[in-house]
């Protein structure tokens, strides 16, 4: 099943401003170049709670899923 890029882009809108800012930067820099596999990883990560994603991005929480690690690294880029 193909993942709709537009849907994933919209789902980068989050409940916390911190994440909106991080994802806005990510969307500008990386989103259009993501492979289908990377897009699937991002789609999976986006199912997490906002505080969990923010914790992984700010380093206060370890990233436990192997498949999220690449996305978290891209999101962490200052």
């Amino acid at each position: 099943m193909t993942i709709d890029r537009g849907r994933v882009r919209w789902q980068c809108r989050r409940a916390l401003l911190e994440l909106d800012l991080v994802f806005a930067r990510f969307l500008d820099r990386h989103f259009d170049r993501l492979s289908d596999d990377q897009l699937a990883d991002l789609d999976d990560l986006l199912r997490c709670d906002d505080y969990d994603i923010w914790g992984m991005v700010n380093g206060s929480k370890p990233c436990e899923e192997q498949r999220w690690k690449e996305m978290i690294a891209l999101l962490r880029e200052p």
Partner: protein
Amino acid sequence: MNVAKRTFDAVIVGAGGAGLRAALQLSEAGLKTAVLTKVFPTRSHTVAAQGGVAASLGNSTEDNWHWHMYDTVKGSDWLGDQDAIEFMCKKANEVVVELEHYGMPFDRTDNGKIYQRPFGGHSMNYGQAPVMRSCAAADRTGHAMLHALYQRNVRANTQFFVEWMALDLIRDADGDVLGVTALEMETGEISIFHAKATIFATGGSGRIYYSSTNAFINTGDGVGMAARAGIPLEDMEFWQFHPTGVAGAGVLITEGVRGEGGILRNASGERFMERYAPNLKDLASRDVVSRAMTTEINEGRGCGPDKDHVLLDITHLSPENIMKRLPGIREISIQFAGVDPIKAPIPVVPTCHYQMGGIPTNYKGQVVVPKDGNPNAPVSGFYAAGECACASVHGANRLGTNSLLDLLVFGKSAGETVVEDFQSGQLKLKPLPSDAADVSLARIARLEGQTNGESVHEVGLEMRRTMQKHAGVFRFDNLLKEGVQKIAEVAERAKHTEIKDKSKVWNTARVEALELDNLIEVARATMVSAEARKESRGAHVRDDAPDTAENPNGRDDANWLKHTLWYSEGNRLDYKPVNLKPLSDDVEPIALAKRTY
């Protein structure tokens, strides 16, 4: 164009705390209820509320609703309606205990009761001493609340329309509300949601400001829809600001940083708070600090190429201390300001946080407008709750932890009123006018056909910059007057926005253009209302309305103890009295007094 129609007993727009609480009331009473939401319910901005929810349970210290009511009226600088405030404070225990029964994981005392912590502005015995009134789930209160309410709604069979954006309110020739039009993002199709009752719970509109703590979804959709449909907006000049948001980003830097020794500096490196508050300096209260920062920026002593912020300096603290005591702040600064505060100061600016005004309602959650001499005549079929609504319990300034209480109490109350009106047969499914979807279809068609138009991003940026400069935390008559003109020009430009991507499916550019239409209404309302109010009250502080013996804190009760009503059509203002009379005889009115802490 053929528009699909769906029919429900009730449609709720927004699935944050207020929308979910209202939905629960309806679904559990057996009403066929639809909830429209732009994002998945548990990703609503209620998640960001950390402080807790106020209720005079008296678990940790002695407390009662009379004291809570007094604190709320005083906090509102007497602009809050005392009937609604009495209702909210009296209902607080009930809605918190209900939430506990829904499985909300509140912090506990040793004997198993809900633990309560102190919070600014809340007191015992009418301002005598701090009280422990805030019920919290660690620092995730809003998050836990939203999850508990969502689960309960799933159980009650509430029907969610996730990733749907409501576009316009549908009113008939009598002015009655018959539902909304909405855009399904996945298909790009427009539908009509025809209902006996429509509840708006769309949250705040803080994205009108350049510096805002609000998430990107907070675009004032309900407020904008109501304004376009002819409903006046109440008290939109009142916005709560936090002194230290990261400049250009808005993310909050907690007051704790100044508590640890952080110093505010202007462009020449001067510790300017020494001039404004010689004793407390950087630890002065929020409004004093915000005002000093604004004055420095307005007088040309701001930092950066645009001289539009000041600096929060902690470079004199030891790196070990910063790493140990302020690790989150260091991360925020690196992420959002691009500076490591161990090495360089953090750029900060007063930042918009909470909207006190909104769609006028009474304590029952009914939307009310002036009609035939009654300043508060209910609009049949229309209800609102939470930050988008103005009951008015926060008046000119909100107390921390009263916002989560507001959305629980008035979400439930709006739901109860709808259920009562439904069961008594008062609510009927009135026939849809033939042009029910025309306004929305015209907006969409305008966007489709626009050529040589304005960029949504550019117009939005101009709006946010104009609001920040001309209607910020500390206000000046000349800036407000210019602001009224400027925001009218921005609103004119917003009528000609153009999107390059004309596709239908998941077209986020189109959604953002439609959101801007809502924000523009809020921005106009705020600027015009603020320019007109020639006093200082609560969060609305004017340079030309200072603290005098005649007008303590610049507040002018003789002329301005009244609610503002702004109408989009004609950009006109009206006013209505503040209700200084409580709901019942259980309590005397809280008499006017100077607001000092």
